[in-house]
């Protein structure tokens, strides 16, 4: 079985040089290499699926020594339920999207670069999820960040048609190259803080291997926690990386701009896979802090879960509000991604707050990760197809697209309904599982925020679908129609969307079974293999399941109905009065709670101002002092003495004399001493 896991990693990486070579020979060869290797990787991953049916056989590890000095570090893979699930999600969705890319990127002069980056990304992402230790995980982590940078800034020539933001005149626009840099830097901040956390962990635990970290945590965690606030510091530092990568508050501002990349990139990296790596890492680290809290009895360990849950809740809510007013199709989905990942964080956060919610919270968070990966990939691919057809990223330039793109519409409808959490699609099962875990952990404020966010999600999703597919045709589209009629996307593109939509339906119908499978896997993994103390929930005063379902459905209706009446059927016309509370709220959401502006002001403008101050004030003055004034001083004070030595290179001799004097005094002092 190890072989398949290794192959899954290696195959996409082998594809990179072959794509390059293929591109030099002919396009067909290149395209074949570009999809063959991701598909083979997916097949290898599928070969691992039976292990999930027998979780008691897990974990399996395979590794070899990387360095032996100054300490031993290994490189290896770990097969346990968590890594297996992620491997399946990443490889299968990547393979589907790789196929879609061929249609979407057809004719693009940079297609070879694009395909190589996609293959590198798939290989790196699989390194990340299959790594058996934090070092190799970090390697994958950095590489996916690099691929993300390259793919966001794919249109590096910054042609105006690829700028995002706006619409022009309404909001500032940004170039793809800037967006790529922003993503790299913002996530990089988190990465490097996380590196510090990993190294502190390494100091206390003496290992980076996950299984060893878990098994020895009862010993080293209390020792670490004996240092005042060390557990808190480590929690914060370790979470900084996932917060950045998963675009959670307060490092969430890069993801909306990441939409500058081509559509499939948004689907693959910024919806289905890479942004989930933060969720994955939190789930991977959870047992350590759970042991710290519930086995080693270190109360400080709770902070890890508290931060996770609250970061998730705040992000889910803030991002959803931004989605309400966004005007770019992909940006709505980006805000939605940020928000939905917040849900996953809630699930994982509440999992460690009590001993009764560990398995439920974990499996809920991971279940939502799976369903979100599928439906969001589908949504992004469909959005890509729509943008491809309408030649615009703004929803106001669309409208009535259902007539022209019925197959895309169908797929997108299924995915959108799933996003809203309508039963019986997987979004419903997974989101309700998270809500239930929140309620069972008795974290009522977070539960309330999550319920409100369900309504917001329903609103922005319905608004998006309404405007794009049902509303009146926009002048832009009418203008476009005159040149060439709008049409359905090529078969290779709608085929990929359709396949994902089908997967949504299948997973929805098998939702309870999938949930049960995950629950069983995590029970075996956490409670039996890792021997984490898990209690069963006691009797509740009323049926929590029913309560959550009712509240969830009511919230969906509360959000979807008004949105449909306003944007879908157009039966309600709204006019927001200036200076009203709605107007203020609209501005607040549209300006993204002013967080982005704040960051720009403090971190970008501030850093550049400091840099200018250092370069042009401090350094220039210091340079003048040392390299000009000081020699001048010598030459001016001792002109007569050194006059005889004056040559063309006078400074040389003067400074030489000056330095020699210093040296002689110092030697004299040293000898005397």
């Amino acid at each position, binding site marked *: 079985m190890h072989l398949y896991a290794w192959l899954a990693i290696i195959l996409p990486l082998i594809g990179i040089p072959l794509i390059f070579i293929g591109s030099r020979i002919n396009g067909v060869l290149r395209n074949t290499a570009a999809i063959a290797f991701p598909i083979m990787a997916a097949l290898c991953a599928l070969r691992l699926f039976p292990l999930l049916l027998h979780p008691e056989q897990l974990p399996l590890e395979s590794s070899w020594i990387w360095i032996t000095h*100054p300490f031993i570090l290994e490189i290896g893979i770990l097969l346990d339920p968590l890594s297996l699930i992620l491997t399946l999600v990443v490889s299968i969705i990547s393979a589907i999207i790789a196929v879609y890319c061929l249609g979407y990127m057809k004719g693009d002069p940079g297609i070879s670069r694009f395909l190589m980056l996609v293959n590198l990304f798939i290989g790196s992402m699989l390194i990340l999820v299959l790594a058996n230790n934090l070092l190799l995980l970090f390697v994958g982590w950095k590489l996916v960040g690099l691929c993300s940078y390259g793919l966001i800034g794919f249109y590096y020539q910054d042609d105006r048609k690829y700028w995002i933001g706006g619409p022009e005149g309404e909001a500032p626009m940004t170039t793809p190259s800037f967006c790529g840099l922003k993503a790299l830097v913002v996530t990089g901040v988190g990465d490097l*803080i996380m590196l510090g956390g990993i190294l502190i962990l390494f*100091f206390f635990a003496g290992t980076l291997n996950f299984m060893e970290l878990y098994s020895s945590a009862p010993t080293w965690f209390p020792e670490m926690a004996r240092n005042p606030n060390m557990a808190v510091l480590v929690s914060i530092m370790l979470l900084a990386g996932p917060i950045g990568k998963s675009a959670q508050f307060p490092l969430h501002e890069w993801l909306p701009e990441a939409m500058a990349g081509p559509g499939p990139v948004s689907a693959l990296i910024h919806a289905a896979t890479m942004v989930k790596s933060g969720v994955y890492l939190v789930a991977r680290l959870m047992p350590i802090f759970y042991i710290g809290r519930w086995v080693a009895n270190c109360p400080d360990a709770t902070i890890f879960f508290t931060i996770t849950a609250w970061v998730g809740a705040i992000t889910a809510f803030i991002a959803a509000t931004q989605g309400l007013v966004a005007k770019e199709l992909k940006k709505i989905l980006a805000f939605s991604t940020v928000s939905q990942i917040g849900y996953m964080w809630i699930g994982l956060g509440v999992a460690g707050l009590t001993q009764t919610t560990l398995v439920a919270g974990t499996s809920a968070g991971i279940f939502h990760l799976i369903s979100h990966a599928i439906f969001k990939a589908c949504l992004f691919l469909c959005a890509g197809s729509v943008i491809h057809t309408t030649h615009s990223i703004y929803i106001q330039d669309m409208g009535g697209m259902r007539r022209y793109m019925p197959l895309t519409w169908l797929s997108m409808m299924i995915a959108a309904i799933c996003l809203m959490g309508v039963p019986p699609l997987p979004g419903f099962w997974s989101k309700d599982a998270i809500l239930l875990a929140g309620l069972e952990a008795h974290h009522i404020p977070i539960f309330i925020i999550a319920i409100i966010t369900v309504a917001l999600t329903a609103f922005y999703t319905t608004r998006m679908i309404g405007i794009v597919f049902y509303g009146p045709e926009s002048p832009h589209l009418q203008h476009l129609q005159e040149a060439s009629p709008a049409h359905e996307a090529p078969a290779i593109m709608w085929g990929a969307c359709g396949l994902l939509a089908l997967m949504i339906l299948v997973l929805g119908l098998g939702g309870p079974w999938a949930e049960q499978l995950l629950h069983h896997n995590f029970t075996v993994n956490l409670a039996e293999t890792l021997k984490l103390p898990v209690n069963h929930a006691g009797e509740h005063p009323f049926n929590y399941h029913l309560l959550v379902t009712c509240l969830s459905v009511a919230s969906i209706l509360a959000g979807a109905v008004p949105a449909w009446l306003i944007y879908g059927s157009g039966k309600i016309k709204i006019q927001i009065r200036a200076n009203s509370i709605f107007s203020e709220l609209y501005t607040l959401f549209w300006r993204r709670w002013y967080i982005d502006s704040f960051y720009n002001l403090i971190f970008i403008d501030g850093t550049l101002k400091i840099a200018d101050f250092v370069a042009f004030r401090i350094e220039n003055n*210091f340079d003048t002092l040392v390299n000009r004034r000081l020699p001048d001083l010598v030459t001016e004070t001792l002109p007569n003495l050194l006059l005889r030595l004056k040559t063309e290179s006078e400074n040389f001799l003067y400074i030489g004399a000056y330095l020699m004097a210093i040296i002689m005094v110092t030697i004299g002092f040293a000898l005397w001493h």
Partner: protein
Amino acid sequence: MLEHLLLQAIVVPVICSPAIILGRRVCGKKTAWIARAGLLYSTLLLLFACLQLAVTSTPLVEHYPFAGPAIKMNLLGDGLSLPIALIINLLCAALSFYADHYIDHRIEAIYGNVDKKTAVNHYTRFYALFLLFPTGFMGVCFATNLIGIYFFLEILPLPLYFIMAMFGYVDRVRVAMICLMWAVFGAGFFLVGSVIVYYHTGSFAIDSIAGLSGTPAAFWAILMFLITIMAKMAVVPFQVWMPWVHAEHPTCIAGLLAVYANIAVYVMLRVLIIPLTGDFQVFSLPLMTLALITMVYGALLTLGQTDIKRFAACSTISQLAYSMLGVCSMTKAGIDGGLFFFLGHIMGKTIIFSTAGIIVYTTGIRDMRQLGGLARKMPVTTVLWIIGAMGLAGFPPMNSFPGEWIMFTGIFKAGLIGSTGKLIIAIAGAAAITLSVVYCFRSVKTIFYGPLDGKFANNDHIKDPPLSMSLPLLAVAATAITLGIYPKFILDLFHQVVSTIPLMY
């Protein structure tokens, strides 16, 4: 062939140097192949020595008389000196190929369209001087006494001075002087330190420095040597020479300038930390603080630059401090990682600087604001720059990644077992890498991304450089990646020496 291997590594370039001058009348520019052949030969010798050392774990020691019983020119090729010498020699060899077109361009730019004979004279003069670099570096690496190190450290500014003055940029003569003065300044303090050692131990041998341990003289000796080292490494407040010197020199020696500055870390380890481990501890926290300040200051300075060569120069200030931070943490991991990062840095900096040279060579423009969009016409150059940027920012699979990882493991260890101040420095140091990421990749955006300026779009000369310029850099990149994926070979060699340092962690 393998007799006197270390001596050969030092002497072969010196022999090649006059051979180039003597042969120029007959062979013209082809005499440059003497330099290249000599450097490839010594690189192979050193590779063989490293492999032999990895197998036998027995250091190479060669004894040569020099000036009486107090000063012997013994040479030591151990786990520390051999891998460092190998990488430096490799860079020298790569740059000897890269320099071919570049130096022609400089001769044309400075001296105009001179006759063929004059051009050959300039060209061969460059190569003859260039070969003094490997001699100096090899000497510093293998010397076993302070006078030897002093001697070879003093050799290095000479080719630097003349090459700068003859082939540098606008302000080259003044900057050559600045460079020489700073070298003299540093050397003076080194000499004072050496004299203190001799005064108390009766020997200049590095082995005898340990005799100072525990005496007050140790403090003064360390201080003197440290001033030299900090001046060489451009640690704040000794950084002012670096932007000038790196900005005005011809970029075909740029990578060697990074080595010239960074080799001070090796000297610090060899002369101070290994023999005076206990006495050096008191300097650990202040030096780490200075290193952190330099990292941040250098990074901010880099961000403020618009000149492509000053950009690379200022980033060197910041990057050098990383190695210093690691080594001064006084942990085995910090030292191993600091040295490995040193190798990563000199390779990354060679690529970045040389690529900057390619851009200046091709476009004739140094102001980054006037560049932009070059990726469209110079894809190989773009790839090289990005690889260099990845190296400086510590991205896998470059060799700076394991260096950074191991080094920070040591730095954090020092913080967790030592003072809170060191822990704060460790966290701040890790966070400061963000600034490296910012300036490295911001430069990619400024130079290569965005719309292509009209003046480049219609200019057929704007294209990737000839293979003789890009291939050596790609070879350096491939070596850096290989060492990033398989760092064990070098780390094991380092460990043969570092494990003998009496450090707790």
